[in-house]
């Protein structure tokens, strides 16, 4: 019953939304000069569709790499109490190697915002 009510609400919201934003049949697009980019009297020489670099992507890759590393820490946390000092040292080594990776990425400028 609850599902039915929810479905009715969702469907009527959808229908209302479509009804409100349905293009009116008589409405024309604004004239060409009104549609151009606003440049204070200037003119664009090229079309507005263009490709540009997502320059934060090295940072994104770095984030994903270090997030994956966290996955190794879950099983480690489970056996940590049983294994004791040995587990701590092993995880320390693992994190140290990763830390060198961060320093390398830092030196290469991957953390610089541009």
């Amino acid at each position, binding site marked *: 019953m609850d599902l039915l009510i929810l479905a009715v609400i969702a469907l009527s919201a959808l229908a209302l939304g479509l009804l409100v934003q349905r293009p009116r049949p008589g409405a024309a697009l604004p004239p060409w000069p009104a549609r151009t*980019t*606003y440049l*204070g009297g200037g*003119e664009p020489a090229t079309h507005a569709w263009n490709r540009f670099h997502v320059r934060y992507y090295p940072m994104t890759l770095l984030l994903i790499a270090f997030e994956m590393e966290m996955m190794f820490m879950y099983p480690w946390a489970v056996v940590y109490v049983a294994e004791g000092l040995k587990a701590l040292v092993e995880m320390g080594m693992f994190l140290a190697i990763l830390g060198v990776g961060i320093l390398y990425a830092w030196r290469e400028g991957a953390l610089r915002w541009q």
Partner: protein
Amino acid sequence: MAVSWLSALAARGSVPVYPAVGPAMADQVRRLALEPDLELVSTPRLASVLLVAGVVPSSADVALRRVHAQLPRPCGTLWYRSRPFPELDHPQVVDAPELIPGALRELHRVVLHSPRDQEPMLLPDAPPAPFEGRGDHGQGGEGMMGGMPYGRPMAMTADDLRDGLALDAIDFTLGPFFRGLPPGLVLELRVQGDVVQQCTVQAPPYAEPVAAPFLQALERPVPIVALELARARHHLRRLADALDLAGLDALGRRLLRAAAGLVLGQRLRWLRPMLKGSGLLASVGAGRGVLSDTQASEIGGSAARAAGLSIDARMGDRGYAQLGFEPIVQPRGKEVAGDIRARWRQWLDEIDQSLRLAAHAADIDAHTAKIGVVEGPGGRLATDQPLPDTGPVLETLLPGCEWNQALAVIASLPLAAAATPGAEAGA
């Protein structure tokens, strides 16, 4: 019914005005920002009324028509001391500055109540280049990147200043009525993402009139009080422009109000903490728009002093010597001298200094002694003033800047020539 009720409601709200500012009108338009129910919007798309202030040179006529075309209909145009388009049947003209706010409100009301009487579109309703029906999908050409969708060629790959990640470069011209630039300045720009790659100045900003005390000081000794208060007002207005540009228009209005009501004896102690708290200085980053020593000495004035050069026409003046005047110069220490922030800090320091000098000068009734040369608000002002060529400065400073920094560089430099009476006649 519903529409008329809505337009009645809209007519009671504030009037969104887009100002197209002509020569020597920047200050008068700035004053409108203090009117309670006028809103100076940053793009014509948000406006219902276009205010054309001043006689726009014929070279900017097409640009003005483009701005006019970009106001959403219904809209109206108010011409203040200007030449209306000949195609308009009944242009709304006003000649007295005090009548502008009332005329704008009235025009807004009329526009909303009789939307049928629309202003005609003055540009042909056609795409910039024919494209419809050409190519496989009617996109205007062959292949993925070919053709001219919607009448303009696609952007193509070009080298990037920063690194090897080069993608499409967009070329466009900006101005002369772009709100982020001084009126009249036309830039030809190439950007990748939001970084300026290349900049050419197509037209310099319109000359702006200098406050009366500076012009009088060229001819005869004048009270230093008047000069220094005018200087403080000028710097306050420039800082207000910078705040406006950063989107802090309420703070900008506060500065404009302070400039309008500035009297002898005020110290404006709130100004420095307010600017610091606003984040304006932090927003542009350090080391952007750094002037070389040659550029700084060519521009002169507060921009040169911000770059660590002790250049000031007040130094050789006996009147100022009486007051113990020493020019303020930004230190060439750990902060990068001569960048955007140094110039804004310099304005802040000089506002303080001017208010102190004015107070001191009033006590001993000091007058200027030198005639023919005066330290104007933007720099050295002389009777035989050559017009500065700011083109090369922008062309070297802007490439490499992100968009907000590029606009901040422009807002921190005295780019508009000083309109002395002789220069005005020629313009």
